[in-house]
């Protein structure tokens, strides 16, 4: 079984700790993770802006990188959603690429989906005695239907107090280039999202997409609010280490 990591560009360059956490966690279950070096980005920034040639150039590296994999795991509902929801459209005029895209879609999973649906793991044996709130990112929820998996995983973490985020389904305003192009609207959206996070009085905000977390976390920092942002994988991995230290 060849399990490959789709690092995603943001996790590679800005949040390498997230990709590392996934590899370490899977290693505990004996799963050796393969990291193809030719992968870059799923192409979403270009695709969503309408630049499909540019998106294809980037997405092609993903198609090629995982040809030989049995499973592909990614620390992002959005990048996984791109593969699942848009690759067929993007490559519809290229028979060979289209076939590749369909094969990739079938084997690509967002991290919590992979853990719960594929491996059947709900309790990683972690301990994390903190108040935590969870922001379900739009693409993971709406394009992939991820609803229960992260909650299931978090519910088994000992000491963790999960506080419901009010209006959790609202978009944080990230939207890739939207945050830059329509910065005032995006700013108003992230401000509202941050208000909701602060209402929970959580110490940690977790999610499945570093883009959204960078947005909310960046705004909280701008306001001087000391809420820590973490990917669910990071939290679980840190929690497992903590449990083993005891």
């Amino acid at each position, binding site marked *: *079984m060849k399990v490959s990591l789709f*690092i995603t560009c943001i*996790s*590679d360059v*800005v949040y390498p700790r997230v*990709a590392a956490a996934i*590899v*370490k966690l899977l*290693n*505990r*279950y*004996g799963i050796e993770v393969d*990291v193809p*070096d*030719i992968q*870059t980005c799923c192409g979403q920034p*270009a*695709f969503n*802006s*309408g*630049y*499909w040639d*540019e998106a294809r*150039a*980037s997405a092609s*590296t993903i198609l090629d990188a995982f040809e030989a994999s*049995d*499973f592909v795991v990614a620390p992002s509902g959005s990048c996984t959603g791109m593969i699942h*929801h848009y690759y*067929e459209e993007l490559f519809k005029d290229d028979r060979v690429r289209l076939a590749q895209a369909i094969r990739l879609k*079938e*084997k690509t999973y967002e991290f919590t989906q992979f853990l719960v649906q594929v*491996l*059947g*793991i709900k309790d990683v044996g972690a301990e994390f005695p903190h108040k935590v709130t969870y922001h379900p990112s*739009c693409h993971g929820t*709406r*394009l992939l239907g991820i609803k229960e998996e992260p909650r299931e995983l978090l519910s088994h973490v000992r000491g963790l107090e999960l506080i419901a985020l009010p209006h959790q389904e*609202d*978009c944080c305003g990230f*939207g*890739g280039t*939207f*945050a*830059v*192009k*329509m*910065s*005032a*609207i*995006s*700013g108003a*959206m992230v*401000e*509202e999202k941050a208000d909701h996070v*602060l209402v929970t009085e959580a110490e940690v905000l977790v999610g499945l997409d570093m883009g959204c977390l960078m947005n909310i976390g*960046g*705004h909280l*920092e701008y*306001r001087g609010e000391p809420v820590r942002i973490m990917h669910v994988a990071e939290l679980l991995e840190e929690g497992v280490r903590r449990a083993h230290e005891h």
Partner: protein
Amino acid sequence: MLMSIRADHSTVQKTPDSVKGRAELALNNEFLRRAVKFTTERLKSGKLAAAEEHGNWEEWRERGRQIRLHTIAHLDYYLEQFVNNARAHGVHVHFASDAKEAVQLTMRIAKEKQAKSAVKSKSMVSEELHINHALEEEGIEAIETDLGEYIIQLAHETPSHIIIPAIHKNRHQIAELLSKEAGEDLPPDTAVLAGFVRKKLREKFLEADIGMTGCNFAIAETGSMVLFENEGNGRMVSTVPKTQITFMGMERIIPTLDDLEVMATLLPRSATGQRLTVYMSVLSGPRRAADADGPEEMHIIILDNGRSLQLGDTHFQELLNCIRCGACLNACPVYRHIGGHAYGGVYSGPIGAVLTPALNKNMAEWDDIASASSLCGACYEACPVKIPLHDMLVYLRHRKVEAGRGEQAEKMGMQGFRFIMSDAKRLKMIAKLGRWVQKPFVRDGKITTQIGPLKGWNAYRHLPSLPSETFREQWKQLEQELHASGRPTVHEEIRARMEKLVAARNQSDHMHAGDMARSSDLQAASRLKAAEGERRDER
């Protein structure tokens, strides 16, 4: 609110011609933001509760979608069936290719009737026509009779929400407008204000020569038109005046009254969370010879006005499935912050962001309306007939780029993206370069400067600095460490699960069908793909 939004005043002008500019103005209007937020949140939770109460909502949505897909795929047949049956009831049916033709037809009828006044119930199609303006130019008084529409007519504004047109007005502003009309001071009390409007409009209904309505649905099988409303003004304008003129978008058809049960379930629940609107009227022609009320003459003007452009277009045909419930507006976080007027068209919110350019035959020219979305998909989730609006927004952006109308800076940025992302080696190089470039700006692991491309982002946030190593750069070492620490063998159960999944995947490989093959009607639509390029040129 812990802080206020700081708009970039240097780019805000008096009458901004971009969504961005209008949005920034709207964002600075604290009342507007709060009013829109309050109302949309109420409607949104009402809708969710109504869907939940009804049960099996997904099944009903899918049914609604199938009925709409089927009807639109055979629109010529059902439209013809409707027209024949309506005529058999004595309806005068007319066809208008565009707004101008519809206005001409209306004016011919109004002049023939020597009309002095026309009362109107809410109709988005009539907003497309700007019919009030045309009537007034001929000296015919045009009165909006929906409470919200009446208010914005007095204010000389346009609706900012499909369902709640005056969502942006508070009761004090409304009291002021109505007091002017009443010639006396009316208190800002809803019951008093509504009471005044009831009395005032009652006179108008009884003396008007023409009643004008929209059309929620038209039933092919019976030649009936159906109106959904809560106030009763729709019934007034279609009962009291001698002549009724109905404006109907050509896609409003459904095959039978049986199908109406589905629409009557989806529309009110999605729009306001009601089980059914207070009035649902199925109107089949003018009054019968023996009847004592109802219009003596009924005209239905069937309007194209850009709708047929969506037919045969695989990306946009589903736009014609829309039943105008407004659920996407209420679900949209962008709409909630900027309100309807910022969209700058007759239709606002996510549906407006797609429909406006689509109907205007110039998708590529509508500059930034499609950019005003984070593509969160809340609109799709809320839509009772499952129109993939978030996907359509991407297709719009794509067509704009294809037409060579992409912004220069963005285009260059995307060329850079392509250069970097088409080769992992370049990505690695750029990461290194980035770490070097960021050095003078990093404070405590973050970047706060607002220069160049960072301006939009850092006006509301801090940016994390790049760590000393990318994941790739640490991978070799991490891999060795993990290897050295001794990896356990994979649990039998886990291995079995994985193997089972791979086996199942290989088996289903040969029977693979794409996402587009979900229904026979869509299949028919996808057969048209070949001809699409040609049509795209027309836009």
